[in-house]
C-alpha cells in the first residue's frame, strides 16, 4: 500500500493523509493507491501540508506500518526518548519501529 505523509506547515508535526484530511496518527492513514501525486499537489497547494511525499507501507491488524524505518520513526517519535513519542505510556511501542 501507499501512504501520503508530510509535516504540518505551522506546527511541523508529522501528518498522514486519511482520505479526507490529515492525522498525526499513522493508524489513520489511508492507502492512496495511484492517486498519491494528485492529492499531494492539491494539499501542498492548499497549504495543508509541508514537504509531502509518498511512501510504501504494509497493512497490519493495527493499521499501516511504513516499510522504511525512517518513516516508522517519523510515525512514532525518537526511539531514544520514548517519553516524547506518541505513545509515551507504552514501553513496548518502540518495538514497532525496529
Amino acid at each position: 500500500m501507499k501512504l501520503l505523509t508530510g509535516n504540518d506547515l505551522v506546527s511541523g508535526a508529522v501528518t498522514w493523509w486519511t482520505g479526507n484530511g490529515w492525522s498525526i496518527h499513522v493508524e489513520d492513514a489511508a492507502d492512496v493507491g495511484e492517486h498519491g501525486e494528485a492529492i499531494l499537489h492539491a494539499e501542498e497547494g492548499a497549504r495543508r501540508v509541508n514537504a509531502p511525499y509518498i511512501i510504501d507501507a504494509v497493512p497490519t491488524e493495527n493499521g499501516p506500518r511504513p516499510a522504511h524505518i525512517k518513516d516508522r520513526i517519523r510515525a512514532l517519535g525518537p526511539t531514544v526518548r520514548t517519553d516524547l513519542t506518541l505513545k509515551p505510556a507504552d514501553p513496548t511501542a518502540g518495538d514497532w519501529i525496529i
Partner: protein
Amino acid sequence: MYKYDNYDQAMVDARVAEFRDQINRRIAGEITEDQFKPLRLMNGLYLQLHAYMLRVAIPYGTLDSRQMRMLAHIARKYDRDYGHFTTRQNIQYNWIKLEDCADILEELATVEMHAIQTSGNCIRNISSDQYAGAAADEVTDPRPWAELLRQWSTFHPEFSYLPRKFKIAVIASSEDRAAMRLHDIGLELVRKDGELGARVFVGGGMGRTPMIAPEINPFVKADDLLSYLEACLRVYNRYGRRDNMYKARIKILIHEIGADEYRRQVAEEFAHVKTLGIDPPLAELERISAFFAPPAYNAADAEPDRNDPDFALWLDQNVKPHKQAGYAIVNISLKPIGGIPGDATSAQIDVMADLAEKYSFDELRVTHAQNIVLPYVAKRDLYAVWQALREAELADANLDLISDIIACPGLDYCSLANARSIPVAQKIATRFADMDRQRDLGELKLKISGCINACGHHHAGHIGILGVDKKGVENYQLTFGGSGAEDVSIGKIIGPGFDEDGVVDAVEKATEVYKALRKGDERFVDTYRRVGLEPFKEAIYG
C-alpha cells in the same frame, strides 16, 4: 566577552523583523515552500523528521550566564524542555513550531543571540578552542580574532551565496582542540620573531570526501589576515563548482587544482585585495580585544582536598590546568552513561548558567565534543562546583574516555540520516560503564555519524562509526585511526559493517586487542598506528 554595539543590535533586530514577515507570508500562503526554504535556512530553521529544528549560533562557543539562561528558557517555553549542543559549538532545538520562531529569535536578540550563519552556503559560525583565554599553551587569545572574523563574515555580501557552506576554525595553541585542519579554513595563530600571525590551512573537511587541510601559507601577518582570507574565499567563490553539490566544497577545488596552484592564485588575489583597505585599523582590533581582557583573578593558589574519591576522580579526568595560578578549567560532561550525547535539560542548562555566574566570571564555552566548559574556576571552588554538578547529574568524570562519545542526532531526529547514532552511543557507553575499565583504556575518542555527512565526526575518531542504510536495515561501518587533534588523520574502514549489537561487540574486541598490544603510555590510536589494522581485524572478524 564581546558585547554588541548599536550596529550589531540593529542588524540582529532588523533580521528578526524581516524573518517574522517572511514567516507570516509563508503561513498566509503568499510564498511557497520552495521560496521560503532558503529564507528559513538563512535563519537556522530546518524541517527535520518530527518538526522544525532551530539551530542557534553560539559564536566560537562562548556565552555568558544570561545567554545560557535564555537557552534554557527557550527549551522550556517553546520546545520540550531540552536542547542539543552540537559539534559546531551551537545548540539545536528539535520541536519548534513555525509560528513561534520569530518570537524565539526576538527573545534571543534581547541577549545578543541569533540563528544567523547556522545554515546555508555562507561562512558559518566561527569555531575555536574551548579553552581560549584560559589555556596555558596559547600564544594569544584566539577569541578576538574569532570575533573579528564573525564581524567580517556576517552578511558579507560577496560570500552569502558561496558554492557550498564554509567553516572556519581559529586556534592559538599547538594542541588542537578544535579539529582545526578538518575545516574549510583552519587558522593557527603563531608568533614569528615576536610578531603575531597565522598559519593558514585551507581545504579540510569531513563529509563524504574527508580531507586534511594542506598548509597554504606558513605565516600570514596579523595585519594582513583579513585580506588574505578574503583572497582565499574569492578564489573559491570564483572557481568552486556550483553544478554538483557533492563536489562544491573548497576541499574539492584544492584537490583538483592542487595546493600549489591554489596558493598561487590566492597570492595573486591577495596582492589586489590588500589595496582595498579591508584589514581593520589597530584601534578596532584594540576595541574588540578589550572585551576579552582577562578576568579579575583574585584567588590564591591552593590545591583542592582530594579526600572524596569521586571528587578526586572528577578532578583527574575533567579538570584541566589553567594559565593563571589558583585557577582551573572545568569540563562538564554531557555524556552520562546511557544518556544522549550533547543533550541537556533546561534545568541543567540553568544550573550551568548559575555556576558560571557564581564561579567562572560569568562565562561558559560549548565544545565541539558536545560538552560544556567553565573556563575560569578558582581551585578553592572546585569542590563546590562538583557538588552542584553532581546534584544536577552533570558530574560524569569521563572526559576524553570511551564513553565521552560524539554522536550526531542520527535517524532519531535528522532527515538526512541513514541510521540511528544515539542508541549505538548509549549501548557502547553502557558496555563500558565501569570507570576503572574506562580509565584503564585511557584517551579513546569514539565518534558516531548517522550518515556520510559526518556531523558526528566519525572520520576523526580513534574509533569511528558510520551508520549506513543497507537495503532498509541499519548497518554500521567501523573506522580506526582518525584524529581531529594536532596528530590529525582520517580513519580507515576496517571491513564489512555490523548490526547495532555487532558494532558494540566489535568495539569491545578492539579494546581488548589494544590492551594486549599496547606499550607504555600508548593510547588506543597510538597502538593502532604502530601495529596496523591486521591484529584488530583478526580479532573482530576472526
